[in-house]
């Protein structure tokens, strides 16, 4: 029962390790260059899964404020109020609207991972462009055949 508890509550992290090792295995052992690039993409997505899992809180919603919360926070005393949140809650004098940070997931990891997704697609595009260039040069996208052609002096 304890083992089931340890696996089920942290299942994202277990699956992240499994997916990352699948990607690493493909990058090392596959002969086809496109298969290698698919493995690289799987590896990158696994790391993004790990980082997004860090920011999750129990019972929290998406990090977006409601309209009336925004309206109250940007009222007449809006800028002065935000510096007084001692208990992690920002209070407004006019209306008793509480913004509790525990109600929202951590948006910092989301912003970092947006950059990582774009970088991942760029590396995939460059890798596929190099694959097309190699196919035009050697007539093959298998790694061992390309190495054979290079070794035989062409």
């Amino acid at each position, binding site marked *: 029962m304890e083992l089931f508890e340890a696996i089920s509550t942290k299942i994202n992290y277990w*699956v992240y390790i499994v997916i990352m090792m699948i990607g690493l295995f493909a990058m090392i052992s*596959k002969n086809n260059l*496109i298969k290698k690039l698919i493995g690289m993409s799987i590896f990158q997505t696994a790391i993004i899964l790990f980082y997004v899992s860090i920011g999750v809180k129990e019972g929290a919603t998406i990090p977006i404020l409601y309209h009336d919360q925004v309206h109250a926070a940007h009222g007449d005393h809006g800028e002065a109020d935000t510096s007084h949140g001692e208990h992690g809650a920002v209070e407004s004098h006019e209306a008793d609207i509480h913004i509790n940070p525990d109600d929202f997931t951590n948006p910092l990891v989301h912003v970092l991972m947006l950059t990582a*997704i774009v970088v991942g697609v760029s590396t995939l595009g460059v890798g596929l462009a190099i694959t097309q260039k190699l196919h035009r040069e050697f007539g093959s996208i298998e790694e061992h055949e390309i190495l054979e052609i290079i070794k035989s002096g062409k």
Partner: protein
Amino acid sequence: MIWIFDSIILIFLVVTAIISLQVKDLLSASMIFGVYSFLMCLLWAGMAAVDVAFTEAAVGAGVSAVFLIATVFRTSRRSSD
């Protein structure tokens, strides 16, 4: 009951990752990789990371799959492993 939904998606995620690397036809591998990206996007929407989810849906499942399919059509479709 969100954890049942998450667990089913995580199992399918591992299955699609393995299938897309095992299948010999590279066009099938590209399409199954698109399915993998879309499952990952559903998982992030469930984890309240909506901005990451729709970026992954547009960029991961859309643009990556199109790049892979374009490369497969310009090179060869068969894979040795």
